[in-house]
């Protein structure tokens, strides 16, 4: 109780300090107030994770009551298109889960023939990354960890190294497409970047980073890999694993996969359709998951309510919605243009330095905070740079990769980390310490962020 009180006092003091500092730097009353409330919300998320929605509700209410923002702009900044996109995708994922798509993926992993430790590491890394890119990191990690635990149990090896490898690959893969991480769709909707842009620019870089990370973990966990190879030789082929699970009925799985594939197809080509039909940017991007999930709910009409009530993460989405409003208030009051001007004042016309700063701040910040919180805060600042005549394209990539790859650095850096470690603690009573994770997380985070930095700064491809 005392610790909670101390945290609350600290939160209040820091938020007020930041607000007063903002006024000291020359911001107006409303700008300073928006900084104070936003800081309080972010700190509330950091100190009181379970109460983050309460902070978001109350913070937004205070902004309205103090006329720092009006209702019309609350609706505008809430990024309903992002929220509805996520709702649609969550319904589709719910269907895939129910029809056994993810269990089918687990089955594929369990059925690897002529298994070796290196093959296992390669498969779980590639599948984790791919699944994360196509669905989301939060969904994919559960199934991958399930497969890893089954295989490690069978071959009587410690699962922790392989779970960590899967998580690292999941976070890397989540940067590859618009779908992999909520920050992907958020950045796409605010920047004008399309799914094709992500495939052309984010996907190859994420893939290169994944390969680099695989080499690193093969070296880092060489002892665990040698042990797994030894046990595979001793215990023989994984015949029992091959027969462990099955996924009936196949017809429904095929229909579910077809719906998902068609959805992905239209999402991938959303920009082309928007140009063809003269639709505003991201209209098709939003509409496709809604149509697909609407069709899913017609097909599975008796489960439609379950999809909406259980598979849609309303707690998280409401938090995002109000977080976007609070970040939007920074833009509305002009705070972010003010901050953008100050940053430009510090870095001068050195655009590569600005990219470096954004990349590494978002990576480090994302290792401590939820990356959606961080990106939501940064977006208006980057938009501010755009207002000041700076082409922000390189910065959008910086914040995407920093936001995703930074999640690997600490064990709280990403929701996928927390979910995976929660499962392994409950199943195996393994408590991972901060440092156990930190050294490998920092190594992979530094390596992958370094590769991104080289690509952003030294190639013209991302401008």
């Amino acid at each position, binding site marked *: 109780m005392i610790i909670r009180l101390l945290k609350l006092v600290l939160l209040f003091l820091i938020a007020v300090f930041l607000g007063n500092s903002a006024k000291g730097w020359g911001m107006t009353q409303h700008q300073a107030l928006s900084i104070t409330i936003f800081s309080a919300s972010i700190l509330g998320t950091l100190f009181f994770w379970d109460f983050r929605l309460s902070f978001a509700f109350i913070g937004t209410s205070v902004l309205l009551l103090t006329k720092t923002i009006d209702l019309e702009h609350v609706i505008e900044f809430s990024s309903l298109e992002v929220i509805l996109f996520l709702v649609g995708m969550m319904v589709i994922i719910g269907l895939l889960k129910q029809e056994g798509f*993810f269990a089918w993926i687990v089955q594929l992993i369990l059925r690897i023939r002529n298994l070796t430790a290196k093959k296992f590491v390669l498969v779980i890394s590639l599948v984790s990354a791919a699944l994360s890119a196509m669905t989301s990191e939060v969904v994919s990690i559960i199934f991958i960890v399930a497969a890893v*635990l089954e295989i490690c149990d069978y071959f009587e090896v410690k699962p922790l190294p392989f779970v960590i490898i899967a998580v690292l690959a999941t976070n890397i893969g989540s940067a590859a497409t618009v779908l992999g991480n909520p920050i992907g769709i958020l950045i796409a909707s605010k920047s004008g970047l399309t799914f094709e842009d992500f495939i052309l620019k984010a996907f190859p870089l994420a893939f290169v980073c994944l390969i680099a990370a695989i080499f690193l973990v093969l070296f880092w966990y060489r002892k665990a890999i040698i042990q797994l190879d030894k046990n595979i030789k001793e215990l023989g082929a994984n015949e029992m694993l091959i027969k462990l699970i099955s996924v009936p009925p196949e017809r429904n799985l095929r229909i579910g996969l077809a719906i998902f594939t068609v959805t992905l197809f239209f999402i991938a080509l959303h920009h082309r359709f928007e140009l063809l039909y003269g639709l505003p940017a991201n209209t098709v991007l939003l509409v496709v998951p809604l149509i697909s999930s609407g069709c899913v709910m017609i097909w599975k009409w008796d489960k439609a309510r379950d999809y909406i009530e259980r598979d849609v993460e309303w707690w998280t989405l409401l938090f995002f919605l109000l977080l976007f409003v609070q970040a939007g208030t920074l833009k509305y009051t002009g705070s972010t243009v003010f901050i953008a001007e100050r940053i430009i004042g510090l870095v001068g016309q050195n655009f590569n330095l600005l990219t470096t700063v954004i990349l590494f701040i978002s990576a480090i910040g994302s290792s401590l905070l939820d990356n959606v919180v961080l990106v939501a805060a940064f977006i208006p600042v980057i938009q501010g740079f755009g207002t000041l005549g700076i082409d922000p394209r390189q910065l959008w990539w910086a914040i995407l990769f920093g936001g995703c790859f930074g999640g690997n650095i600490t064990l709280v850096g990403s929701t996928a980390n927390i979910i995976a470690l929660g499962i392994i603690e409950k199943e195996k009573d393994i408590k991972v310490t901060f440092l156990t994770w930190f050294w490998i997380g920092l190594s992979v985070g530094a390596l992958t962020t370094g590769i991104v930095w080289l690509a952003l700064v030294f190639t013209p491809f991302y401008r």
Partner: protein
Amino acid sequence: MKVKEIMTKKITSLNFEDNAVTALELLLKLKISGLPVINDTGKLVGMFTEKEILAKILPKYLENVGGFVYDENPKAVKQKILSFGDLKVKDVMRKEVITIDEDSALCEVAHTMLVQKARRIPIIDKAKNIVGIVSRGDIVKALFNEYK
């Protein structure tokens, strides 16, 4: 009619430090699906049931994995069963226990059983001491007998 009129007063309970296998064997011997768990001061601290035993030996993430069928028994389940004897009742039991006051009406007990999906509910007195236990079967029988 109040629940205290139909509840089973002679309760067998487990101590939270009891061995889990011994507790399981008692369930099987008595042919019941669950027993209340008390601590050293006699306070109700949990429920040890067949459901909790299955939840302990099967992977926790099963609900989230979605549609699939086990065609074989995983090795991990065998290992958990073999090491079940290393556990105590407190490691397996459900700590959140629904209880009902001894003066509650039968319908209230039925209502609680439906909403909380409980097959049996320990009955407590005003001092929160466990004084009996009632099962779903007891409630169904008593309700139908009352209005026959």
